[in-house]
């Protein structure tokens, strides 16, 4: 009950982590099945339809439901602490964002048991995703599930923007903000501008499918290429939504374990902003073979290549952060150090893809599969592992086992390169992506076998990580405030895990790496910027949960509104939009409750604070 009603950012972080982990597990299982099917030519382990459903759900799940929530988990756990705040700006909305995300994700995955998963690829290109060519409810689960989950992401993004703009501790100017706070800020801004595009696209596609609208139907004057534009105007920034937080994590971990401040802080900030900006200008590089013409292709080629410049700045700044430092190979830092060469590989193949005439060959082949897995897995997932190991003691008060952490690192990264490095060559040798099997004697066999073995090894790495979490959770919660001893930012100044109110007194920030600065000056703790006083706390509430349940029911009702059911009662309920209405009543009813009954929250009094 406590977990369903919580509005505390630290608990919501943990909710995001478990939910993200759960979906990540499903996506991982799907990946393993895909790789088993491709282990040899003309394999019959899976049939073609199931395979297409698996690739669609694997991509969709991983991007929207697997890594995004883990990113949000870390942001929720860390951002308020890093900027010296007591919570996010809108704790109620924070809970709402989580629950809509969770119920959207559940809805999407219900498709496995309710008559067919989406099968048109995670990009859902029309007309393949239209009812004519994808007749099950699969793609409806996709559009409606993602719509609901996307709502949560948008809410979360806006919340972080507001939090970072308004709730920084005294003295923390923008140019004193930790890098992870910066990348969270920019990521949230990208979410704010990119998610409305997919929202609109999903609405249009939903209307095409459920209300027989004709936005994308060529037979009635619709334009399928329009979907590609809408999708990628969201979809390209989305990959920066994913990678920027990883950049932020790496920028925290490397300085800590090099005992040096981040090299070129202001150029890092500048590069982050530039990447975000360019990220919006390059969507059509996913569409070089669509036939946009040489002018568009040339422009999008060159603008894409430009992203290499700010990215290069970041990589060299990380390397020079370590230069002259004292590098410690803790598990978080192993992942951060492994991130640099791996992500660089993904970056350089990105530049290769940016050259349109070369992309005519790369596009939709395993080369592209290799490229984006180097960025997303080799970049983001390594970054997330780094961040999770790094902040685990802060989130849970327990240190993960270093030995098991190192095992996780080595099995995972070796498995990763085995899986994906060879795929570059598969693509160049003529293997297209999204094929459920391939003919023998094309010289694809050995490399596919290697790739599948690698995937298995990555799976082992994941299992070791889970085992690590399991045995750690059985140990006493006795982590130190600053368990890595070289913590530089504010989260390391308070207990692990932090009390409900985070900071008894809001700290005064006197420079970049505020805590480190105090330590150098010989202080053990931050100088407070206020006397101990009564702390205002928001009340727990079940309303966000109820609102999301309502949207979930409404979505299901809408999706099945045109079906005929075996039972008359069901047909009556669905066909007359009664189920939809019921769901909306729950949601709007909860909103009404929220507006009518003012809840002023409660206070923690100074006596109580001192009494601890």
């Amino acid at each position, binding site marked *: 009950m406590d977990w369903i009603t919580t509005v505390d950012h630290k608990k919501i972080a943990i909710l995001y982590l478990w939910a993200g982990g759960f979906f990540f597990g499903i996506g991982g299982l799907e990946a393993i099945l895909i790789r088993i099917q491709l282990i040899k030519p003309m394999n019959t382990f899976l049939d073609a339809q199931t395979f297409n459903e698996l690739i669609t759900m694997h991509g969709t799940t991983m991007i929207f439901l697997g890594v995004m929530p883990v990113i949000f988990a870390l942001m929720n756990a860390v951002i308020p602490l890093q900027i010296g705040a007591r919570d996010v700006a809108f704790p109620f909305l924070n809970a709402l964002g989580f629950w809509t995300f969770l119920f959207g994700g559940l809805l999407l995955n219900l498709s496995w048991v309710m008559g067919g998963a989406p099968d048109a690829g995670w990009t859902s290109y029309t*007309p393949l995703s239209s009812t004519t060519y994808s007749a099950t409810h699969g793609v409806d689960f996709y559009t409606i599930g993602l719509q609901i989950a996307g709502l949560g992401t948008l809410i979360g993004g806006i919340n972080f923007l507001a939090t970072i703009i308004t709730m920084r501790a005294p003295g923390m100017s923008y140019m004193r903000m930790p890098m992870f706070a910066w990348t969270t800020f920019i990521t949230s801004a990208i979410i704010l501008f990119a998610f409305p595009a997919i929202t609109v696209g999903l609405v249009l596609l939903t209307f095409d499918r459920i209300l027989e609208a004709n936005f994308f139907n060529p037979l009635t004057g619709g334009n399928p290429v329009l979907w590609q534009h809408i999708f990628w105007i969201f979809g390209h920034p989305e990959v920066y939504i994913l990678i920027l937080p990883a950049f932020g994590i790496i920028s925290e971990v490397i300085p800590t374990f*090099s005992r040096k401040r981040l090299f070129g802080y202001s150029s890092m900030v500048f590069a982050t902003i530039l990447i975000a900006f360019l990220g919006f200008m390059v969507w059509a590089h996913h569409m070089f073979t669509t036939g946009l013409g040489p002018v568009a292709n040339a422009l999008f080629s*060159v603008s894409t290549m430009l992203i*290499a410049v700010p990215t290069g700045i970041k990589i060299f700044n990380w390397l020079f952060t370590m230069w002259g430092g004292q590098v410690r190979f803790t598990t978080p830092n192993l992942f951060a150090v492994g991130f640099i060469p791996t992500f660089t590989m993904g970056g350089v193949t990105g530049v290769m893809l940016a050259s349109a005439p*070369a992309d005519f*060959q790369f*596009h939709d082949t395993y080369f592209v599969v290799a490229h984006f897995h180097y960025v997303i897995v080799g970049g983001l997932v390594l970054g997330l592992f780094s961040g999770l190991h790094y902040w685990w003691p802060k989130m849970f008060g327990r240190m993960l086992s270093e030995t098991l952490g190192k095992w996780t690192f080595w099995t995972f990264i070796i498995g990763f390169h085995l899986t994906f490095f060879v795929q570059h060559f598969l693509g160049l040798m*003529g293997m297209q992506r999204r*094929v459920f099997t391939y003919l023998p004697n*094309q010289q694809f066999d050995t490399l596919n076998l290697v790739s599948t073995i690698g995937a298995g090894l990555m799976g082992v790495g994941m299992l070791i990580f889970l085992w690590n979490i399991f045995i750690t959770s059985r140990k006493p919660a006795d982590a130190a405030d600053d368990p890595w001893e070289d913590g530089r930012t504010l989260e390391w100044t308070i207990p692990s895990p932090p009390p409900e109110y985070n900071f008894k007194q809001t700290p005064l920030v006197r420079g970049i790496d505020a805590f480190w600065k105090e330590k150098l000056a010989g202080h053990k703790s931050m100088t407070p910027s206020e006397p101990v006083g009564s702390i205002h706390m928001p009340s727990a509430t079940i309303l966000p949960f109820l609102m999301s349940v309502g949207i979930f029911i409404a979505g299901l009702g809408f999706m099945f509104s045109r079906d005929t059911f075996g039972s008359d009662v069901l047909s009556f309920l669905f066909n007359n939009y009664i189920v939809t209405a019921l769901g909306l009543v729950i949601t709007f009813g909860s909103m009404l409750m929220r507006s009518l009954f003012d809840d002023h929250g409660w206070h923690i009094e100074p006596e109580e604070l001192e009494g601890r």
Partner: protein
Amino acid sequence: MMKTWQAGKRLLPMTAALGLLLAGCGREDLSVLRPQGPAAESSFDLMKLAITIMIVVLLIVYSIAAYVLIRFRRKPGQREIPEQVEGNFKLEVIWTVIPLILVVILAVPTVKAVFAAGNDHSNDKNAVKVKVTGHQYWWEFEYTDYGVKTAQDLVIPAGKDIAFELSTADVLHSFWVPSLAGKMDTNPDGTVNRFSFSAPNEGVYRGKCAELCGPSHGFMEFKVKSVSEAEFEQWLASMKAPAVLPEDPQLAETFKSACLSCHAIGDGTMGSGPSLAGIGSRESVAGILLNDDTGVDGAPILDNLKTWLHDPQSVKPGNYMPDPKKDLGLTDEEIDGIAEYLAGYTLD
């Protein structure tokens, strides 16, 4: 500009070495890395340039990383605080400018090649015009200047430019012959994509569909057969010759009523299925059952036809051909008879 070019030139030896190395990868009739025509070569040249630049970048990053990680490990007992360096303006400018230069080196030839690839030959009198239509899950080729339609095997005269017009009858597909040229989508909105390539060397090249188009997307393959000018003329002539029906009149009747409702032979109007004219001379049945009498890469055409006709769904899941036995009511003997007829229906 001059400078850029010189930097590019310095990369040339490495490009050449790389080219040799990569050219060992994959089959000649399939691999992007073993281009067999000018269009694929232009892509390959850019790829070599890009890979070279990128390997240089990787080498730099990896050597710095290796140096740093070895040299600056924390030694036991090290307690003093390292100097907290803010940054270094000069260094930061250097690693902003160098990538910029590298980008320019790659961008200039890229833009050139983009516009070169945009050159279409649709008004070129010497080019052979082919209208390509993608279907779930087969390819239709119409030679508009000659009034000939065929499927699955694209026969072209070696060395001549082929001007393509790409469209689709249903969902998006993407037309791709890796060793001859990059891919191009077939769009369903009436916009026709044009591009062209040529195959100077005679031979058979493997083509693929590169855009997810349904369950049998992976099986939507085709062959490009580059033949001499004379052979091409001959092929055209025999494609235009009157259709040949099975000799046995009863079988002919069955074939007409069961198969020709969708398929065409000769210059008959095309239904929803691929043309079967001269199918005995094709490289494959259904694009993926490779006809090969030696049995190394496939099976003899008769076996392949029987495999297909006895169960089209198991060969290409989700395809739209009715099952001859179950849906069209043909007996096993009739099916085998039709298979024998089709296997013998060759072009001279």
